[in-house]
């Protein structure tokens, strides 16, 4: 790779250099360290700015000023006759080839153009190759390196070591593998809740099917349930019933029109009692299906624990007015022209950057929000909640709309404002309607027994068999539907969890490799910057050391030796000039290593 030495610079009309029609002309030696010195106000900084504009296309210290300062209109010299600037750079290649001259111009309207009077084919590309992290260093770069956070220092150092792109990839992978983000973005909690709900509904359908199958055939249902075999057994039980023969002769049980069967029975029996018995059997099944299950107490306790957890999390927040303030504060802190230690609200200068503290406070609100979502999902997926809704709405209990409380509680739980008292209210309400339900079942049972005594025994049994057959078909269909639903959600969840596992592994692998590479590179320059620092300060009692924190991007500036003390903080102990010397030693040793 050819290296280019800057051997001449000519500047006209740029920053503090006017030199109209007579450019400032500086020549440098390619085989020596060149220095420029002179009294204040002569244009030394303008030369640095001109090189910065030529190579980077900008002057950071101007661009970082507030927008109102209109910094772009101060690139060109304000007193120059044309208001435009010209910067000529002459490079000497180290392969013995001819010098390359590049001209960078900035018009009065701010347009930049680059060409090569010596005919170099790609002048802009050549300038871009010079734009690396250790070219054009100023005192601010040194100060930032010493004073910025260990994380930011680690990233700057990665740039110096030529690892900026790897650092960038690491940050992206870190964002993508953040577990809480993944759970939110991939709807993991929602899918898990839907899966649990599908399994419960499938199990309820299976239990119902088992009960009706036993009543119909006198046999135990074989599990896992095979719909074809089960329905075949049911059809055998019904095959000898004269009234049903015509209905089952050419059809499978699921295809039988039970409404038609009931009409046939009604016609055969010619009795209103028959109709009432059918309705009572249906009402009985409806009511029994609404009875409590053993899992309800566990679900209620889980919901109670979530509500208590939310209250605990709320204690770490400070009301609903602050989140937008935190959001605005963070946007200000992250803007390029704001000192991240300066509080945007009171303009107090803090010792450490404010962003981590603001993010921690936002995180407290995020945890409350997640807990509220979890409460909403738990409420929606709990069987007892579904039961409360169904019981209140059931035509069997005829509860007036004004007396129903499910919809009010549903709004409270889904909006995230529910508390333990609301849960107690819901449980108490469920107990109250369960009492009504029990009374209704007793009433139905009593009336059924009365009718059964009045009807011929054979038809009573037949009526029950048809009812069980009809219910069996319905529950098997429900079981199959929920089984398919469960399989679909399971597959979806498995795919997403597999991705999450993959992306977490990817970050872990990348991070370990990047830390190892960076650590090795830092170790390779250790003796160089330590020696350089000792030569600059002529003080062997202080020995600096860069320490990469295990598994993170943090880079700590430590002192291996400090007048007999070992492993102490460089940032807090070193005076400003020594800090500059340390940063200078690190930057130069890194730059020297990169050119080897």
């Amino acid at each position, binding site marked *: 790779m050819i290296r280019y030495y800057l051997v001449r610079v000519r500047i006209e009309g740029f920053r503090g250099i006017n030199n109209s029609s007579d450019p400032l002309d500086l020549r440098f030696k390619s085989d020596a360290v060149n220095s420029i010195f002179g009294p204040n106000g002569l244009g030394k900084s303008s030369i640095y700015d001109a090189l910065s504009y030529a190579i980077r296309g900008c002057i950071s210290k101007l661009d970082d000023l507030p927008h109102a300062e209109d910094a772009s209109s101060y690139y060109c010299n304000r007193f120059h006759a044309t208001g435009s600037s010209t910067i000529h750079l002459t490079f000497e290649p180290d392969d013995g080839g001819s010098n390359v001259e590049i001209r960078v111009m900035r018009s009065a309207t701010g347009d930049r153009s680059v060409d090569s009077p010596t005919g170099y084919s790609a002048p802009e590309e050549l300038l871009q190759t010079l734009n690396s992290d250790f070219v054009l260093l100023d005192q601010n770069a040194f100060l930032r390196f010493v004073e910025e956070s260990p994380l930011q220092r680690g990233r700057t150092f990665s740039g110096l070591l030529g690892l900026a*792109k790897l650092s960038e990839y690491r940050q992206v992978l870190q964002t993508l593998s953040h577990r809480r983000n993944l759970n939110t973005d991939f709807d993991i909690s929602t899918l898990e809740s839907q899966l649990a709900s599908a399994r419960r509904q499938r199990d309820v359908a299976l239990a119902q099917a088992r009960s009706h199958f036993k009543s119909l055939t006198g046999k135990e249902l074989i599990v896992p349930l095979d719909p074809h075999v089960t329905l075949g057994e049911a059809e055998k039980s019904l095959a000898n019933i004269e009234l049903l023969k015509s209905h089952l002769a050419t059809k499978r049980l699921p295809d039988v029109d039970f409404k038609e069967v009931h009409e046939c029975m009604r016609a055969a029996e010619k009795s209103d009692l028959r109709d009432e018995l059918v309705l009572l059997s249906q009402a009985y099944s409806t009511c029994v299906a609404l009875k409590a299950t053993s899992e309800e107490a566990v679900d209620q306790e889980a919901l109670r624990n979530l509500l208590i957890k939310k209250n605990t999390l709320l204690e770490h927040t400070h009301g609903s007015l602050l989140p937008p303030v935190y959001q605005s504060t963070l*946007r200000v802190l992250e803007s390029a022209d704001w000192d991240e230690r300066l509080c945007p609200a009171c303009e107090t200068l803090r010792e450490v950057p404010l962003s981590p503290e603001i993010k921690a406070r936002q995180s407290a609100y995020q945890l409350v929000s997640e807990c509220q979502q979890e409460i909403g999902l738990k409420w929606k997926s709990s069987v007892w909640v579904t039961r409360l809704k169904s019981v209140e709405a059931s035509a069997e209990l005829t509860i007036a709309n004004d007396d129903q409380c499910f919809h009010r509680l549903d709004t409270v739980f889904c909006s995230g404002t529910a508390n333990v008292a609301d849960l107690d209210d819901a449980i108490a309400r469920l107990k109250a309607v369960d009492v009504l339900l029990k009374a209704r079942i007793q009433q139905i049972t009593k009336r059924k027994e009365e009718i059964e005594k009045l009807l011929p025994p054979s038809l009573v049994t037949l009526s029950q068999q048809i009812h069980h057959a009809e219910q069996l078909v319905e529950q098997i269909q429900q079981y199959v539907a929920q089984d398919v639903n469960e399989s679909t959600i399971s597959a979806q969840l498995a795919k997403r969890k597999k991705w999450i596992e*993959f992306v977490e592994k990817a970050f872990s692998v990348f991070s370990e490799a990047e830390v190892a590479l960076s650590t090795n590179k830092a170790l390779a320059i250790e003796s160089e910057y330590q020696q350089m620092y000792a030569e600059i300060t002529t003080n062997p009692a202080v020995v600096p050391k860069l320490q990469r924190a295990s598994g993170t991007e943090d880079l700590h500036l430590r002192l291996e030796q400090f007048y007999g003390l070992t492993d102490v903080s460089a940032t807090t102990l070193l005076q400003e000039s020594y800090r500059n010397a340390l940063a200078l030693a690190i930057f130069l040793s890194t730059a020297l290593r990169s050119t080897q």
Partner: protein
Amino acid sequence: MSTFSFDSSLSAEANIERFYAHLSTLDANFAALLKNNLSTMLPLSDSSQIRGTRRVAFNRAIMAALEKSEATLGDEPA
């Protein structure tokens, strides 16, 4: 899965290619999916709000790709 390390004699781009090749030994489809979509997360210099929006869009693209059959994963940018 064997240990992976970067080669200090190679450029960042070449090392990242090696990283993807290594990930392919874990899951070739997922590695291709990550590679094809990762550039949408850049640049990092934007505000945290914009980066958050990009992350959500990235994960939505991944979810959409996961809904396709496993065989087609990673064949094209999502």
